[in-house]
């Protein structure tokens, strides 16, 4: 059994570690490229959202490398993600690909199916081994998130372009190679230290920009045109609240252990959006509100074209922007999105935000020294 799984940012590092510790032969799909997207788009309906197309492309490319078993997440709606597996199963058959699709469904939808899925993935591993594998994967999830966050915070004041990303790249390779939890922690600490080393004082003012939206688009640099890197190089400090560990905590852990309180995004979003709408609709609105209140200068909202929850969020965000006084730019991404289009819009947006940041700096300095004459 040669197992593969879809890409989502750096998700491959912990997933690979988990499956390998269980004794699987893991095939990581080649990094997502234009070819992946067009391969996927060829076998999926054109009205579908981008993550379906990209993950489909991942599967085909992994199958080309010899994968015969595919792990995919399921779901119980209302977001379309929950039905990806059905379309992909049909599309794989149509594409002449014989790989078997194993769908990881939440246990409460079908307990028996869940048990048999666990049995397939577990193979002959003992409970102890599964626990060890989960611990290692969790440590890697945390480390990957820490590196992402550090890079987002550091890029705007790096010494020499691309040095932070080179550092992070080396760190991710170390993480991938690490076999034990302590090695993972060591690698992460070393990398964070190195990242500190390649940052200087930076320009006097940074625009602090939040990135919200649909999790796949936000976390997969290959489809979001490297938004975080672009923002960083334009001189913005990027705050990105969606992370793997956060997602696992709020969707897996809280789903099983109901007594743990969920992070309360709904209370932030409730003046504008009072009910969950599937996907990350509430998160997009809630985090934007939180960002405005915690003094960020602007928000970039990313969504795949025709994404239902993000259409709801996108129609509400302008009123959040007005009421909370924070500029919000919504960007829809599909397989035709081009780099240059993003470049110009992000440049213009960050320029405006930098102005805002400077103004803010001036006011606060004035406020300290005395009244401002207008």
């Amino acid at each position, binding site marked *: 059994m040669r197992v593969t799984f879809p890409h989502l940012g750096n998700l491959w590092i912990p997933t690979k570690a988990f499956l390998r510790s269980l004794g699987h032969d893991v095939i990581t799909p080649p990094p997502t490229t234009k070819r992946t997207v067009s391969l996927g788009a060829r076998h999926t309906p054109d009205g579908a959202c981008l993550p379906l197309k990209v993950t489909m492309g991942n599967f085909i490319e992994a199958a080309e490398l010899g994968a015969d078993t595919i792990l995919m997440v399921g779901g119980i709606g*209302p977001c379309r993600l*929950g039905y990806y597996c059905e379309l992909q199963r049909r599309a794989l058959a149509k594409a002449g690909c014989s790989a078997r699709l194993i769908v990881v469904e939440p246990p409460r939808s079908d307990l028996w199916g869940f048990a048999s899925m666990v049995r397939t993935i577990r193979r002959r591993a003992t409970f102890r081994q599964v626990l060890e594998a989960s611990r290692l994967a969790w440590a890697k999830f945390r480390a990957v998130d820490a590196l992402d966050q550090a890079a987002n915070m550091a890029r705007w004041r790096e010494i020499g372009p691309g040095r932070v990303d080179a550092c992070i790249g080396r760190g991710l390779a170390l993480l991938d190679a690490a076999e034990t939890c302590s090695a993972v922690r060591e690698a992460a600490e070393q990398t964070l230290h190195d990242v500190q080393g390649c940052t200087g004082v930076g320009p006097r003012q940074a625009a602090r920009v939040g990135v919200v939206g649909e999790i796949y688009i936000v976390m997969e640099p290959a489809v979001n045109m490297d938004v975080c890197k672009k923002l960083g190089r334009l001189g913005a400090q990027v705050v990105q609240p969606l992370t793997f560990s956060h997602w696992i905590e709020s969707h897996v852990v809280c789903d099983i252990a109901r007594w743990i309180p969920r992070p309360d995004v709904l209370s932030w979003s409730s003046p504008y*959006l009072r009910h969950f709408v599937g996907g990350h609709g509430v998160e997009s609105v809630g985090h934007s509100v939180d960002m405005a209140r915690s003094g960020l200068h602007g928000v970039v909202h990313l969504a795949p074209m*025709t*994404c239902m929850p993000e259409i709801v969020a996108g129609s509400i965000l302008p009123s959040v922007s007005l009421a909370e006084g924070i500029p919000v730019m919504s960007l829809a991404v599909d397989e035709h999105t081009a780099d240059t289009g993003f470049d110009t819009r992000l440049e213009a947006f960050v320029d405006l935000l930098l102005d805002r940041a400077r103004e803010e700096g001036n006011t606060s300095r004035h406020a300290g020294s005395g009244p401002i004459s207008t």
Partner: protein
Amino acid sequence: MSLVVGVPRALLFHEYGHFMLELLRQCGARAVLSPVTNKEILQAGLETCVDEACLPVKAFFGHSAYLAQRVDALFVPRFVSVERGAYICPKLMGLPDMIRARAPGAPRVIDPCIDMSRGLGKTARSIAELAPALGVSCSRLAIALARSMKTASANADRRLDDGRTTAAGSGVRIGVLGHDYNLNDPYISLDLVSKIRRLGAAPVTAGAYSPRETGRWERQRARRGAKRLFWTFGRRLLGAAYRWLDTGEVDGIVHLASFGCGPESFIAEVIQHEAAERDSIPLMCVNIDEHSAEAGLSTRLEAFIDTVAMRKCEYASHLPTSGQPVDTH
């Protein structure tokens, strides 16, 4: 003076309209219904709605805009789920918030939350919040609910369960798949159902079957290894499609989907796949948005019905819609 409540004639009004109007009447409010969708209404919708939304949602915004100046409150229920294990659609779940956010100066929005997936108790609690919004006591609301449910169920019996309609003209029966809120709105659906009828074929819509009947077909297919859908209306469409494909009781299927509709983009793919596998019934998919034109639909429909009719009576003499004899050899 009684409260004037506006009810937009769009989206799930086409499904639960009788119930909504009766409920408001029973609660002593004066319900004002917006007119059937027309050009001005859709235009108003396009101006206020975000452009990525689907056509029926845009039309809903138009209806709300029409009502906004004429009423004290808008009645926009938040339909989350009407059965266990299935949702309606994320956009409809956020509809009241979208209306609130994008229509400045609008009257207050009354948005009872209907979420049957969490059990009757929670639904009842959220519906009880209607009482202060409508200015009635909880007991009166309960009575009104019971009465309007009775009226609504009396109306629901009008569905024909076997889908049998008299086939006129060429005797071609066309199954029409599409959300009720599209098919029942002649402006949005470009009058598809009547067009089919005018071309001499007998349309059978998926809405003609009871949810129980379509649910049965959908479950049956799921038992043979397809994942169950989690959208209520999607289940109905898919159930009807399975029934038609398996029994062959229609001669052709037309699927009317709105561009940008999330569930339908997936359902269409599944139906196409199933139809191609069985290779039994021709299928035509029509996507509509605010730019759709009548002529484009007419020609495609004529051609489709001609093809279906020819296929049906390969050797019988057949008068096609164009009025010209067709050589079937």
